[in-house]
């Protein structure tokens, strides 16, 4: 009885507090301003937030988030932000410097308006000797391309939905409905993608950068080597010779190349191995026709299946 009464009081107080927070935080008309580090995270926020949010991204499509240099305009974006969605894993530490500059505690790492999208993701390729330094060029603790596994979108959208509900509790139903709608479309599409790539399970590939471990895991591909193992450092001849000989030994079927990267080395390897070079989109918007999260995979799966299918007997 007492517990029931207490529960009732607490419940009422919570409701009152929630509506107060709502009144203070977001006027009913204004959309929630979300700033996402990358176009991929922005695309996922858009799926969950729908027309309740306005989403801006900081790093343009196809640009390595680690190597990105922020512009003065990015400070403006952060000043307007109700929520900052980060890639995490140490790949966007530089944003901390920006946040410090505008002095907004909520957006700092661990702050209430800062969301690390990598939370809960089954991470791949955790490396030793991770250098964790402040502000500067810090290498991440795991491979950061986790959005390239469609199943990870389930986890990321869950975190995004939680964060949005916290900011706009009154829109809870709408947010959850948006996410459920997205997940059901994702489910259907995922069956289609798996079917399209099923015949190529175990296929050996060579990639320009190590961007594809999550994609490879989900679609059962084997990326045996990378043409440019260290981003920005041109491959040495010894390394290329090794990649070519490993590729011919393993019967590699295609070279996967990221858009915007210089492709001369990839073309050389493709020529030597007589296999096609395919450009796959590493992030939303980096290739024409990959303007949302699902079309990113539609494009990559179709392009890869076509390139691999063309050579199979």
């Amino acid at each position, binding site marked *: 009885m007492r517990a029931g009464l207490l529960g009732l009081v607490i419940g009422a107080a919570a409701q009152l507090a929630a509506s107060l927070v709502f009144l203070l935080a977001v006027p009913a008309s204004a959309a929630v301003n979300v700033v996402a580090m990358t176009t991929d995270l922005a695309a996922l926020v858009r799926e969950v937030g729908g027309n309740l949010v306005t989403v801006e991204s900081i790093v343009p499509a196809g640009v390595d988030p680690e190597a990105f240099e922020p512009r003065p305009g990015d400070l403006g974006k952060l000043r307007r932000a109700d929520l900052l969605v980060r890639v995490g894993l140490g790949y966007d530490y530089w944003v901390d410097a920006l946040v410090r500059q505008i002095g907004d505690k909520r957006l700092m790492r661990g702050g209430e308006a800062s969301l690390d999208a990598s939370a809960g993701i089954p991470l791949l390729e955790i490396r*030793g000797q991770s250098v964790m330094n402040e502000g500067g060029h810090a290498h991440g603790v795991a491979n950061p391309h986790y959005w390239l596994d469609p199943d990870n979108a389930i986890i990321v959208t869950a975190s995004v939905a939680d964060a949005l509900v916290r900011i706009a509790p009154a829109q809870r139903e709408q947010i959850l409905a948006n996410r459920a709608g997205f997940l059901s479309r994702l489910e259907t599409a995922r069956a289609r993608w798996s079917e399209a790539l099923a015949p190529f399970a175990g296929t050996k590939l060579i990639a320009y950068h190590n961007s594809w471990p999550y994609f490879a895991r989900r679609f059962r591909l084997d990326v045996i080597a990378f043409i440019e193992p260290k981003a920005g450092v041109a*491959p*040495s*001849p010894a390394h290329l*010779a090794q990649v070519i000989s490993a590729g011919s030994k393993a019967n590699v079927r295609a070279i996967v190349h990221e*858009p*915007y990267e210089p492709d001369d*080395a990839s073309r050389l390897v493709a020529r030597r191995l007589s296999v096609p070079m395919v450009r796959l989109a590493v992030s939303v918007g980096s290739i024409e026709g990959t303007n949302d999260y699902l079309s990113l995979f539609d494009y990559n799966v179709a392009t890869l299946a076509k390139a691999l299918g063309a050579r199979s007997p």
Partner: protein
Amino acid sequence: MSAMSDALALLALPFAASVVFVLIHAYLGVHVLRRRIVFADLALAQLSALGATVAFANGYAPTSAAGFGYALLFTTIGAALLTLTRTLARYVSQEAFVGIVYVVATAATILVVDRAPQGAEHVKKILIGSILTVEPADVAKFATLYAVIGVLHWFARRPLLALSGEGAPAGRSRAAAWLLDFAFYLSFAIVVTSSVTTAGVLLVFSLLIVPAVIGSIFSDRLPVVLLIAWSAGIAACAVGLAGSYALDLPTGAAMVAAQAGGLLLAGLAKVLLFVAVEQRRRNLRIAIDALATTVLIALLVSSAWLMIVPTGDQPLLALVESTTGIGPTRFLGVGERDGYESAARDAVRFQGEVERLNEMEKAARYQGTPLSDDEVRRIASYQKTFNEMTRGERFVQETLRGKAQTRARWIVGVPGMLVALAGLLWLAHRH
């Protein structure tokens, strides 16, 4: 055996390309040296890079016809500017204008590329080039183009050399001199533009200057200068390519370093071998003294550093330890030594565990039963633990090393400093 043939197959084309580059660039470099506008080629190369970047921002590949067109347009403008500044050189040194052109071109490149995705990557590519992946058709193209330019220069060699040598050629109208000057810069621009797309600004610059400098060290006569420049340049390219293969280094940068090494050797050879006996002996003594002074000063600074901050990084001590194999354990007790060695062993073992788990996860991506998300999470958490443990072992090593260095502080530091001081005093006294 197959690695050897792989290497040859991979390096043959870049070597052929670099021979073509050396032949034309070393020759143009001689002109550049005589005109005393060493940085002009850097400015032109950077303008050409700016042109290629404008093309890139408009969606053309640097090696395409449009890319070449843009680059050539910008370089031609640069050539016209350089010709113009030569007439202005009476008032202000031409180097000043060249410097301005270079800086503005570089800044403009960064501004243009700012909007393009992976622009930074492109800028880097233009700097270091991609000679390793040069295609057969490109080499043929370079050879033809440079042969044509070489032949044209052969026919105009007398007036061109006169112009490079004196600045104001006697017996010619100013218009004729101006035209000839522009023709020189234009041909120069065409060469630099086409080379930069493949060799990169850095390699083009070093191929222009270094072989020509090496040649000029040994002679004043053009045929001799050219012969030495060509042989030295080609040899350095071969060494750079081979070194880049053997030591697993980026090719363009390795070739630039090899050119610099060639220059160093040539300089040493000149002062130690190609001078009169008396002079040679004196130069040798200067070289030995300089070397000894450097070593002694390094020893002095290092010993002082060890005494001031024994637990800090001790580069010279670390070098001695790694070359002699005498570890920091010398100054540790038996127990501490065991601790140090087991920490080193464990750090390696834990890293091995992290790698082993990575391999296991990687194999499960495409063969056998796929790992569930939770299994992957568990692997990741093991790996994080192993990484933490590695860090712990490294910390133990660092602490013990600091302890050893603190004990070595006076035992090694004081004698080191005394030896260094005595040596330096003796050197000073001898003079």
